[in-house]
């Protein structure tokens, strides 16, 4: 068990810098998720912690020990790879016990540890099988088992669920999380799936273009995104963004709707107003603060309805518990919840 500290970590491939100075503190036993769109550098960052990529500059420390130049095997870490990377020529038991074998652990001890891990993952009946004889979910479990057998200080997961079907992914999500809680091992998990990040993490690190956009607990990021990128990236369906003019003391939306400026915010030109789809109400008639939009489609799941509308070329998504009578092509009145507004300045940073 250990803390992980990244201090102004940078990585360049030739002239191209892909990690541009990342500083993150990970507490002992914390489950941290690195999330971001593809190409944001999250996997590279994980591989740098693993020792599979060199650190161009900055410091990586595990348990307060600087490990920039320590070999992967001496970092006391275990990694679960995206495509599992199980050794095809070894049985499940051999795969799981390989690191112990290399470390010179006596055979009976290896067997005991492998069996223990296999039991906790429900892999006992498969110990003598080869990876190709297993299903995707079982392989994933073996990969996880291989990591926990070594009892490392830090777990690293590189998009471990991306090769599974949706139902299995949901199941494995909670299995991994439950396992991590039980073992209490510091874990760093990379995903591009913000739902995975929201549901699993103690702390999320949102990355874009090699820079940290925001660090925080899942709901912190959801409730108070630090900038437009995080606001639109976290949450599904994604947050509605409107350009608005706030120079006149109020927020002017679509030129005609005026909303009160939140306290302590000075209006400026080129601001963005973000409103979550569930913070917009569908109202029957024109009320103060409501604007009109045209329905493009409706998706009713029973428990809730998703309404897609458009106004002045801007797409709007609304999620409501109410059953709606409107259909595609109808005009509806939409009223944003004034208390749930996210306001961003012209530079994209949060101002309220």
């Amino acid at each position, binding site marked *: 068990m250990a803390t992980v500290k990244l201090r102004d970590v940078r990585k360049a491939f030739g002239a191209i810098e892909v990690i541009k100075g990342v500083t993150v503190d990970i507490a002992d036993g914390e489950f941290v998720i690195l999330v971001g769109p593809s190409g944001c550098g999250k996997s590279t960052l994980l591989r740098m912690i*693993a*020792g*599979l990529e060199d650190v161009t500059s900055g410091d990586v420390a595990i348990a307060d020990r600087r490990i920039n130049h320590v*070999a*992967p*095997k001496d970092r006391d*870490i*275990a*990694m679960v*790879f*995206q*495509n599992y*990377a*199980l*050794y*095809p*020529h070894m049985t499940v038991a051999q795969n799981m016990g*390989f*690191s112990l074998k*290399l*470390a010179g652990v006596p055979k009976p001890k290896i067997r005991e540890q492998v069996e223990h891990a296999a039991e906790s993952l429900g892999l006992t009946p498969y110990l003598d099988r080869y990876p190709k004889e297993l299903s995707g979910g079982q392989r994933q479990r073996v990969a996880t088992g*291989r990591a926990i057998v070594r009892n490392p200080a830090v777990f690293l997961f590189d998009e471990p669920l991306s090769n599974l079907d949706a139902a299995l992914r949901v199941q494995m999500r909670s299995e991994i999380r439950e396992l991590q809680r039980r073992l209490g091992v510091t874990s760093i998990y990379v995903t591009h799936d913000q739902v995975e990040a929201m549901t699993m993490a103690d702390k999320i690190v949102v990355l874009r273009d090699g820079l940290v956009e925001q660090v925080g607990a899942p709901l912190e990021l959801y409730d108070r995104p630090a900038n437009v990128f995080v606001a639109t990236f976290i949450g599904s369906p994604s947050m509605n963004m409107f350009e608005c003019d706030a120079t006149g003391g109020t927020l002017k939306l679509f030129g005609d709707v005026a909303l009160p400026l939140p306290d302590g915010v000075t209006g400026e030109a080129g601001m963005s107003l973000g409103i979550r789809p569930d913070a917009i109400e569908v109202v029957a008639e024109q009320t103060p603060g409501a604007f009109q939009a045209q329905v493009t489609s409706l998706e009713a799941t029973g428990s809730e309805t998703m309404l897609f509308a458009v106004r002045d070329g801007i797409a709007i998504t609304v999620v409501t518990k109410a059953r709606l009578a409107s259909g595609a092509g109808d005009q509806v009145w939409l009223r944003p919840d004034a208390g749930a507004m996210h306001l961003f300045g012209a530079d994209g940073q949060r101002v309220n």
Partner: protein
Amino acid sequence: MKSLAFFPRTRRMAIIMHLFLLGYVAVILFPLSWVVIGALKTNREMFLDPTGLPADPNWGKFIEAWNAGVRDFFINSVVVSGVSVALIVIASALAAYALTRMNFRYSGWVYLLTVLCFAIPVHAVLVPIYGLLSDLHLLNTHLGLILPYAAFGLPFSIILMYSFFYEFPAELEEAGKLDGCGPWRRLWFVVLPLSRPVLISVAIFNLVGVWNEFLLATIIMTSKHMQTLPLGLVSFRDQYGTDWPGTLAAISIGSLPLLVLFVIFQKYFVRSMAGMGK
């Protein structure tokens, strides 16, 4: 018919293809079976009815040939081929792994040089090789044949292994790194066990070449007791000029080991060769 899956044409096409392949097999098998059947005949039958079957198959010729000198040739061939092929497999695996994994200075040039060596014909360097081996007092020794065989087998083998290692899944080795393997253990525990097809191809390919090699053996192994099978069979024929069944029995014994090996390992051999065009 599985083998015809590449030609999913008409039935007539399939028949034509099969007839062609049957003819091809006949062309290959005829001389081979002639040799084996000939060994079972009497000398008289050989001349009266060269293509016919023996009236009373005489297996004794095989034992006779074996005792008349084929045994020594056979042992020489096994030692020379076995050791040189082992050397080639070990050295080419190490070289190819280093060339694909370690980005040392000039590694690209080393590979290019290897490819160039592949283009050197043995005839061009016969004289210097002879001189070198003579100076080293290696003429008429097993080592004197093993070293040039290994040297000439290496370039092609390195190229073959290089292309295999080049495409070896990186994450398996990365998993190895995290599990605690250095480069040697990675090669030994992760890469080599999964490289069986290419290792076997390299071994068989070189074995075929070395087992049948004649030219180098002629100039290096001048004393009779050191001769390998191809060389020995020639002198065997001269010595027993009139004993055709004996000579044919000796040839049969000489061809058998490769046939057996190839039948056992042909799955790997075909798989590896089929992947070469990539």
